């Protein structure tokens, strides 16, 4: 029998990532806030967006910056005027979210949901 090799492994992991990316795109779309939503939210732009461009978009949408995340394309914004989510989207943001659905975590061989660890971030 012929056993597969490195190319096979690359194709396999590539395939898994493609399916994953499709699933995540769907879930990101589903979890975006409706256009009429307002209040404090996360504005997410394309990853290539500069901080200046994102800031200008937020201002144009009538939002106030609460803070920038560690990434130039994710900002915490707020507004009291209804429809901030819709205006952000119209001005070029990918979407607005209450919290980012992607929360990367790892689980080693002993993933313990330790209350003390959670408290450290409070």
């Amino acid at each position, binding site marked *: 029998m012929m056993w597969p090799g490195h190319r096979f492994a690359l194709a396999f992991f590539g395939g898994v990532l493609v399916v994953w990316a499709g699933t995540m795109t769907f879930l990101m779309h589903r979890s975006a806030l409706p256009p009429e939503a307002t209040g404090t939210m996360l504005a997410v732009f394309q990853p290539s967006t500069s901080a200046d461009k994102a800031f200008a978009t937020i201002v144009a949408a009538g939002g106030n910056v609460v803070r920038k995340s560690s990434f130039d394309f994710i900002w915490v914004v707020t507004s009291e005027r209804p429809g901030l989510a819709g205006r952000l989207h119209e001005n070029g943001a990918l979407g607005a979210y209450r919290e980012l659905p*992607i929360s990367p975590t*790892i689980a080693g061989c002993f993933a313990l949901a330790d209350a003390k660890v959670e408290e450290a971030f409070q």
Partner: protein
Amino acid sequence: MTTQAAPSTTPWYFQPSTIIVTGCLIAIINFGVRSTFGQFTLPISEAHQWHRETYSLAIALQNLLWGIATPVAGALADRYGSARVLMVGALFYAIGVAVMNYAGSPLMLNVGGGILAGIGIAMSSFSIVMAALGRLVPPEKRSWAFGIATASGSMGQFVFSPIAGGLISAYDWHISLLVMAASTLIIIPLALPLLIQNTSTSKVEAGETTLTMRQALGEAFGHRSYLLLVAGFFVCGFQLAFVTVHLPPYLAQHGISKEFAGWAMALIGLFNVVGSYTSGIIGGRGEKRVPLSLIYILRSVAVTAFILLPITQTSTMVFTATLGFLWLSTVPLTMGLVTVMFGTRYMATLYGFAFLSHQIGSFLGVWLGGKLFDMFGTYDPVWWMGVALGLFAALINLPIRETRAPGFAAA
């Protein structure tokens, strides 16, 4: 005159590619689903007005059961074949996760998320898959197969956690947990191709030991090299569990934001895939004890550099990427050494005992991390303990003899 190769009579579902793909998908699902449990800490605790310790206890119980049940699952796989054990394990896993969803009391949560899920994870884990692959693939491909299976487990934790988070955001935690439960059931059809490796009816393979299970365990635990390997794997568990649980708060102490810490931890998952696969390739090219020792040394070097240098975003990324590369890369080499010393007949059982040692190390890494932090107000003592243990593991892996153990030698 030309000769034509006879067409293969092996059905597609028993073809090598199918076996590797299904085995790897099982590893992805098994490791992936369990990596999502942290996402449910808050929603489940808030929905039931429970303290977070309640949920933590169930997950701690699950990890403990996983460790204890792994040698038993391995013994069952060695006796009845991996496919059957994977199928039963998937059922336990699915029921356990579903019970978590409907648990109305801490007791039910402990039974579902702790006991049933813990047993299910052990019985459907990638070590059971690796045991099947170890028997099916030719010796020269065995280490590669261990590598790709381990890398798949790593990939699982990288891809599943955001999916569970996305499902919680898009729908709610009930739906997310039920999808996770349903995902584990996919392991059942995926295990079907592994039925080709059916140890329950086959005779002892040529070159394999004729010892009974009890005799084999007695011989293994009297074999110095196996004991050294098991002791080294304890250190692996200690280091990884400490980093998994205590690195994020350590980073927070040094002014690294929670979201950056999250992405830095994700780097571990990503580089883990590359490291595990590479380790499988290296293990197939020569001695396994030397790269295994090197992994422990490099972990110690990486930790030393990380805690001595100023903690910045850059140093954090470099550290997590390095550690990710060295994360589960011990697994293909450890499994490989078990196979070299004892053959494939009892490999799942004997790897299972090594993994139990790993889990005891994990428990101590998590517990001591918290305990010593409470005592000294800093994680430094445990970091240094990890460095020292890493050097110890490197030293004790070097004298391992990469030959068949007495009693397991091919006739």
